[in-house]
């Protein structure tokens, strides 16, 4: 299929080859490395143990037998295509106003979920589409990044007055509260991380930041008391009690997770090793939320450090791209994406080793799951998109360079 992008804006043409070449392949390389880790880890969690004398290569070949590994690979490949599509097709000038339509759709969906949840008196965060669920809060993160970037780039000075960020706060508050009401604590915390990161980089002065922190210090206890439900409150209490887990399921999950990670030691037990804790399925959700446990057990401190190092490279690369992106909107989008990834990574790894509460948010590019992979790739695509923008040279119909 060949998409003729030139038809989209008849008034000028684009040099697609040059745009594709200007995409940040280092970032893609880092992500590919993480996904390789992911495929091995998912295989480790879902396949039976390899024979004792199997070589590393043979074990790698065995990965093909796991449906989960193959699907994850498929999600990744399609994710890369999505990334390219987003990076190339999305043109702010053209879609600028659609951001608000997107925002309205997401908020509407969240509101409907809330109504359904209220009437059935149960937590609902999914729309069921066939057999698979569609989770609006996943897409809400993108909406929040885009809308915040748009609102905060309205001026390019340092923000010193409250009224300059009121629209941003208001825009953020509506979906945030709906997510809290679902209640989906993990995503809500991700949203806060995005918000804080973007506000910080947008140049809100410290007076407002400190006021905001003060306001939060008052609002959070109230929110804990009136907004959170019992189970979430328990989890938070558990966290502040530094146990990291409070319900018996969580305690079990955390204990097994620490057992797996701890028994990995320096060099790890190797993957597909008979008798490893991940082989014996002691850690619940080990191929999704708790994939880090299995990874750290299989590859030890060395392997886990390499993975954490890759994530650090990913985040620093994103920050570098933000720095290199000349326009304010672009910078903020990348910072938003970076903040989101950061919180996902820190919270997920933190919970598996017991320094963060168990919230059930996946580890980007590692955890098995299609929709999460796609959301992440859309975000990377957005970052690439705004990063490439500086190289997006346009020619008029007369082949004249437009500036």
């Amino acid at each position, binding site marked *: 299929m060949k998409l003729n992008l030139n038809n989209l804006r008849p008034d000028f043409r684009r040099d697609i080859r040059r745009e594709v070449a200007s995409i940040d392949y280092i970032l893609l390389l880092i992500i590919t490395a993480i996904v390789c880790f992911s495929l091995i880890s998912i295989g480790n969690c879902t396949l039976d143990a390899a024979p004792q004398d199997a070589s590393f290569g043979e074990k790698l070949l065995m990965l093909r037998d796991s449906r989960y590994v193959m699907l994850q690979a498929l999600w990744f490949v399609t994710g890369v295509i999505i990334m390219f599509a987003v990076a190339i097709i999305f043109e702010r000038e053209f879609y600028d106003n659609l951001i608000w339509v997107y925002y309205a759709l997401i908020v509407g969906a969240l509101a409907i979920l809330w109504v359904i949840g209220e009437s059935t008196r149960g937590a609902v965060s999914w729309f069921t589409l066939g057999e698979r669920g569609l989770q609006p809060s996943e897409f809400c993160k993108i909406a929040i990044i885009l809308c915040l970037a748009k609102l905060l780039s309205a001026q*390019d*000075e*340092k*923000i010193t007055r409250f009224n300059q960020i009121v629209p941003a706060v208001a825009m953020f508050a509506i979906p945030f509260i709906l997510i809290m009401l679902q209640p989906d604590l993990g995503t809500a915390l991700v949203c806060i991380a995005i918000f804080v*990161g973007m506000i*910080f*980089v*947008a*140049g809100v002065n410290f007076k407002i930041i400190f006021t905001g922190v003060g306001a939060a210090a008052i609002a959070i206890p109230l929110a804990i008391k009136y907004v959170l439900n019992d189970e979430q409150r328990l989890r938070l209490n558990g966290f502040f009690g530094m146990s990291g887990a409070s319900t018996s399921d969580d305690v079990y999950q955390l204990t*097994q997770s*620490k*057992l*797996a*990670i*701890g*028994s*990995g*030691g*320096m060099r790890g037990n190797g993957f597909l090793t*008979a*008798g490893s*804790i991940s*082989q*014996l*399925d*002691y850690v619940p959700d080990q191929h999704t939320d708790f994939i880090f446990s299995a990874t*750290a057990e299989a590859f*030890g*401190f060395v392997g*886990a*450090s390499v993975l*954490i190092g890759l*994530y*650090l490279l990913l*985040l*620093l690369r994103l*920050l570098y791209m*933000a*720095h290199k992106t000349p326009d304010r909107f672009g*910078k903020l989008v990348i*910072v938003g994406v*970076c*903040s989101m990834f*950061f919180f996902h990574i*820190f919270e997920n*790894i*933190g919970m598996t*080793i*017991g*320094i963060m509460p168990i919230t059930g948010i996946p580890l980007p590019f590692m955890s098995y799951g299609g929709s999460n992979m796609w959301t992440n790739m859309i975000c990377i695509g957005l970052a690439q998109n705004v990063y490439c923008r500086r190289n997006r040279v346009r020619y008029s119909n007369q082949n004249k360079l437009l500036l």
Partner: protein
Amino acid sequence: MHSNNRFQAEDRRVFNPVFRITALGMAVVLCFCLLLSGLHRLQLDEGETYLAAAQETKTQVISVEGTRGDILDTNGVVLATNRECYEVTFTWDPDKRTSEGNANYTKSLLLVIDLIEEDGGKVIDSFDIVRGEDGNWHFTWEEYFDAEASASRAETWCRNMALDYDDYENPGEIYEALCQRYGIGTDVDEATAHKLLSIWQQAQMNSYSSYIAQTICSDVPISTVSKIELASAQLDGIGVQQSSIRVYPQQYMAAHVVGYVGSIGEEELDGYLEDGYDRNDSIGVSGIEQSMEEYLTGSSGQKRGSRVVEVNNLSRVIRQLDYTPPQEGSNVVLTLDAELQKVAYDALGDTISQINTIQHARVAAYSGRYDTLVEARGGTPIQYADTGAAIVMEVDTGNLLAVVDYPSYDLNLFVGGISQENYDALIEDERNPLFSVALSSRATPGSIFKPLVATAALMEGAIDTSTTVVDAGSYAQHGIPASQALHCWNLGGHGPQNVVSAIQNSCNVFFYETAYRLGNEALYDWAQAYGLTSRTGIEVSGESLSYVASQETYYNPEKGLYEQATSIPVYIASRIRSYIREVGDELSVTFTDEELNAGIEKIFAAYVNGEDAYEAAYDALVNDIGIPAAVVSNNRMTSKIVSLLGELKFGLVDTMITGIGQSVTTVTPLAVARYLCALVNGGNVYEAHVVDRVVDDAGNILYDSVPTLITNTGVSPEVSSTVMQGMKQAIMYGSVSGRFYGYKYRDQIAGKTGTAETSDIDIENNSWFMCFAPYDDPQIAVVIHIPNGYSSSYSVEAAKEIVEYYLDRQAEDTSASIPQTGTLVE
């Protein structure tokens, strides 16, 4: 970038976030350092701990039992062994612990119970809540414990069953709740529901080790196995596995010696658990199975092997890491000879039924006389011969070649727990098949005691071989008035008797006189030397202690009232107590048994020690019991009490009748066998042995029994041969000599009969016969005892068959070349 531009930028207040992005980057690095330090702590600092904990979490040790050892007779005939069998198991998949899962399992359990019961199998039925006689549900332990202990037990039980004890009012509600939990519908009848709950209880109690399949029915026939295989698609969780079960191929043969296995009783459980047994293990509960448990078992901690396995989070076994094979139980080889045992059992059984027939015929013929006698004793029906014992002992070792109890029972009835029906049948059988006559019944010996009296008197010089006593039928000497004269069984009298002819004729008068001259104390010492007052030490529990009459046996002041050899002192004491209480009632004073017994013991002691019993009684009544002196004298209490004491004192007549084996002397057939051996082997008293050796499965001998000489009585060869000669002549010319006319081994057998009176009815007499063979070189001693066997002459028949079989085989063995080991097994 020019410095000018920067100022311009600030002037225009364009915000360049490079600083903030850098700060953000540093925050990210910082947070990741936190993650790394956390990871470092888990994997490197505490890695070893977690590794050990992981090891412990994922490995489980399943213990493996060894096979129980066999019990063999001396020739290798198997008396107890194990048979391969199939058992039906239930495995509760932890994945399916939902209400639908449970209901589904219940469905397959219902089906399998049907299949098992179709073929006559029995599913476990051990649910701890049962319907009581009042129709309500009760915990099984409620009747054994007080309310508090029972409640605490129930609470633990509920916790193990994942129930909250406080949620339920009574066991009935718990029953309902469990029925609901396991999906047992109301359409299931109660008996079946109870079985289902038994299975579920077992599964629930063992849910922490669901990798072990739970046995729900042991020993199913192959037909059931194939039915289960056929229906396997509908039998989720049901499996069949191989196991082994105890069998007794010789069934009733030597049942009391071999014994049987059973489950561990609640009260011994802790001890066995300490020894490494599992609560479901079988242990020997009687006979050799019990006494040789430590050798036979394959289940003790010492013998158990183990499988170390890796289990996953659902407790499913993933692989085996290590296997230590169990040590098999060792084989116990007995001294018993199964062939001889069988011959003896059949001979004894035939003899007993013959006697029984004769007794009935006699009662029919003289019904008037017996009716009068029965009426005279208050209607207690006549006891006929229907039980008996036969013992064959090796003269020079004390090894038992046959220990026969009649009737016996099939040991296989007890395998896997005896059914109520069979148990009731055994218990309600008046012949009491579970009781061992040979080891546990004590009976008055009668004339078989006489060779001992002769031996003692000859050794002590009270008589010599030329001593002659004239038996005129009755005996009234040494101050016994003619009105109370003692009699010989032959009322016409035997005329002049020496010791040999007295043994030959079993002449009572000769032995009255001999016992008188010998004195009871010397006789008692000799009886003690011949082992008639001690246990024989057979390796089977339940042996009774024999007693020989003496003052100590009548009443021993050094022992408490309730520790005496006979129940006579207790009976006399009760009569005295009720008399004192009568007096006490008039005074409105009540006494406890303890108060009175203390005084009574003093009176008894004074009386048997020959002190002034009247004075002792007065002292006890006034000072110990506290009855006013005036009341004691007015009521003439002392004389009344002393008049009751007569039976405590071992008097002259007692000495004399002890000499013919009467009085309170009671002995077990086993003790008699040992005594007979000592009579004919030169006075060697051995421990009785029934275990020959213990051999482990590698053929090493772990225990080898050697003849254990307890004592030599010091009898001289001349005395021995004199007594043996008397026993020889008893066969040749004595009262039973007629039964030996034409007997193949008449020349080689010598023995002594005994007929002991037990009541006024002659046919209730105990029948004894003891003999040895061959006469010149005694090898075996045979003792036959038939309670209520009418007359000793009948017991002779059983002994004749046993001796004939034994000597026949001896002849075969010596005529054939020396047999190879094992050829006898055929």
